[in-house]
C-alpha cells in the first residue's frame, strides 16, 4: 500500500467529534478513503463505529470537525441530500420495507436515481430502465427467486442480503456497510463475504465488521477505533502487529 494521497481521496474525515452529554462517542477522528478502497472499521463494542457512520450519512450532525465527500463538505446535511450525492449505507439492525415485496424494496431504491422519481402520473412500473436494473440487482444479491415474497418473510440471512441490496441499488460511489454479517451462520457469513467481495470492485467501501476472517479477506486497509478515537490505521499486516490494537482487544472485546 502506498501512503495516503489527498488528491484521489473520495472521503476525508477531519478532526471529527461527536459527544452525547459527557461521552465522546467519536473523538477527534481523522482518516481518508481513496476511491476503490475497502476500509474495514473495527473496534470493541461501543467504540463509536456506528456513530461514525451516522455522522457521515447525516443521521447525526458532528459536534465539531468536517467530513468531505468528493471535495465538498457534507457535515450536517440531511440524510437524503447526502444520499443523493452518491453515498449509501446499510444498517446494523435490519431496516427494510417489511410489508413490501422484495422486488418493490429494490425497485424503490433503484427509482431514487431516476429522473422521474417523483413524477405524479406516469406508471412506476413503466419507468425506463428501473425494472431491468431491479432484476439485475436481485440477481446479483441472489434473491431473484424471492422477488414476489414480502420482505419480512425472507430468512434472516436473505434479509441481510436485501439490506445490502437496497444500499447498492442507489448506485453509490461510496458504500457504508454496518456489520453486514451480524447474527449470521458461518455459511451465510461466508456467502456474504463473497457477495461483498463481488460488489466492492471499483467501489469505495467502509465496512464495520466484527468477524476478523471477513476483515482479513476483504479489507485493503483497516481503521481501529477505541473509545471514539483512532488507535491504529494501515494495512491488515501493519494493524495486526500493532501493540495498541492487541491491548484494546484484550482489554475490551
Amino acid at each position, binding site marked *: 500500500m502506498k501512503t495516503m494521497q489527498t488528491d484521489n481521496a473520495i472521503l476525508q474525515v477531519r478532526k471529527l467529534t461527536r459527544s452525547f452529554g459527557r461521552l465522546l462517542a467519536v473523538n477527534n477522528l481523522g482518516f481518508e478513503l481513496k476511491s476503490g478502497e475497502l476500509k474495514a472499521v473495527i473496534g470493541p463494542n461501543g467504540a463509536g463505529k456506528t456513530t461514525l457512520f451516522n455522522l457521515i*450519512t447525516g*443521521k447525526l450532525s458532528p459536534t465539531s470537525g468536517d467530513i468531505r465527500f468528493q471535495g465538498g463538505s457534507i457535515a450536517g446535511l*440531511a*440524510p*437524503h*441530500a447526502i*444520499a*443523493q450525492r452518491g453515498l*449509501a*449505507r446499510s444498517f446494523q439492525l435490519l*431496516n*427494510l*420495507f*417489511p*410489508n*413490501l*415485496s422484495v422486488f*418493490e424494496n429494490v*425497485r*424503490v*431504491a433503484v*427509482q*431514487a*436515481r*431516476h429522473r*422521474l*422519481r*417523483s*413524477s*405524479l*402520473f*406516469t*406508471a*412506476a*412500473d413503466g*419507468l425506463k430502465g428501473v425494472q431491468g436494473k431491479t432484476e439485475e440487482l436481485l440477481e446479483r444479491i441472489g434473491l431473484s427467486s424471492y422477488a*414476489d*415474497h*414480502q420482505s419480512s418473510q425472507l430468512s434472516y440471512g436473505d434479509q441481510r442480503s436485501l439490506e445490502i441490496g*437496497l444500499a447498492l441499488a*442507489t448506485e453509490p460511489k461510496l458504500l457504508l456497510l454496518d456489520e453486514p454479517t451480524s447474527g449470521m451462520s458461518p455459511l451465510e457469513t461466508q456467502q456474504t463475504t463473497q457477495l461483498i467481495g463481488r460488489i466492492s470492485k471499483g467501489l469505495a467501501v467502509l465496512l464495520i465488521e466484527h468477524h476478523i476472517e471477513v476483515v482479513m479477506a476483504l479489507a485493503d486497509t483497516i481503521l481501529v477505533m477505541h473509545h471514539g478515537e483512532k488507535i491504529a490505521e494501515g494495512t491488515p499486516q501493519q494493524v495486526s502487529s500493532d501493540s495498541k490494537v492487541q491491548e484494546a482487544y484484550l482489554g475490551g472485546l
Partner: protein
Amino acid sequence: MTFLRVFRGRQGGYYCFLIFLFALALLPLGVDRLYSSFYLRFGTEMLIWGLFALSVDLIMGYTGLVSLGPAAFFGLGAYAGAITLLRLADSIWLALLISLVLCGIVAWVIGYFSIRVKGIYFAMLTLAFAQIFYEIAFRWRSLTGGSDGLIGVPDPTIGIPPYTLSLGDPYVFFYFTLAVVILVYFLSVRLVNSPFGRVLQAIQDNEERVEFLGYPVRVFKRRAFVASGMIGGLAGMLFALLSFVDPSVLYWFTSVDVLVMALLGGLGTLYGPIIGAAAFLFSRDLLSSYTEYWRLILGLIFVWFVIFSPQGLVGLYRVTKRRLLALWASSSMPILINKVVDDEDHADR
C-alpha cells in the same frame, strides 16, 4: 373459471366497487317508481362523502399520516365555493378553481408546520388548525354569515349557452358528482401507482429508510397532504352545492365522521373509503329513524370493525370470501378451487 376469476383477491373487492358504482349510476332511474327523490339526493351525498373519505385514504392509507383535521379542507372548499358563487360570479368552474387553489395553498402551509412533527403531535396540530378555521367561520360574520351560514347560494350551470344544464336539478347534479368522483378515483389510482405514489407507500412502511435512499421524505409527505387537501376541498365544494354551508362543515365531528368512513371501508384501497362512506350514511339513515342514539350504535359497529376487521369492509369481504371458497373447496371440485385460493393468497400479498 372466468366467473371465479372476477372475484379473485384484490380484484374481487375492486369489481364489487365497480358494480356498486354501476348500480349507483342507475339510481336515478328508480326515482318515483321505486323510491322517492330523497334517495337521489342521498346517493349524491354518499358520493360526496366518498370523495372526502378517499382524500383521507391518500394520506392515511398510503402515506401513514394520521390527520385529525380533514374538516379544514372540506369546510374551506365549501365556504370558498359558496362565497365565490355568491359574491364573485355564478360560475361553477371559477368556484372549483378558487376552492382547489385555496385548499392547495392552505394544505401546503398546514403541512409545512405539521409535518415537522410526527404521530400524535402531527394529529393534534392538524386538529388545531381545523379548529382555527372553525373559529374564523364563526367570527367573520361579514364573509361567512357566522352561525347562520351562507344563505341564497345560487345554482350554477354547466355547458355552453344556450345548451346549459342547471346543477340545481338533482338529476344533473347527481351525474355531475358521479363524474367528478369517477375522475378523481381514477386519477388517484394513477397517483398511487406513480413513482411518487410508490415512494409514499415506502414512507408508510419505513420512512427512515426512504430518507437514506435519497428521497426528501418531508417534501413527499407535504405533497401528499396537498393532494389530499385539494380533493377534500373539492368534496366540500360539491357539498356546498348539495346542502347548506354553516360552521358545522368545519367542526371536528366532520373530521371524525370521515375518518370513521375511511376506516370502516378499508384503508389503502381508495375504493374502500367510498364504500365506507356509503355504508356509514346508509346505517345512519336507517338507525336514526329508530333511535336518536344512532351515533352510539354506529360507534359500537365501528369498534367491532377496528377489533375484528381492521381492514374494514374490504377486509371483511376478502376474509369471508376466502373462507367460503375454502369451505367449498373441501366439499367439491377440490383441484380447481384450491388453485383459486392459492392465487388469491398471492394477490393479497
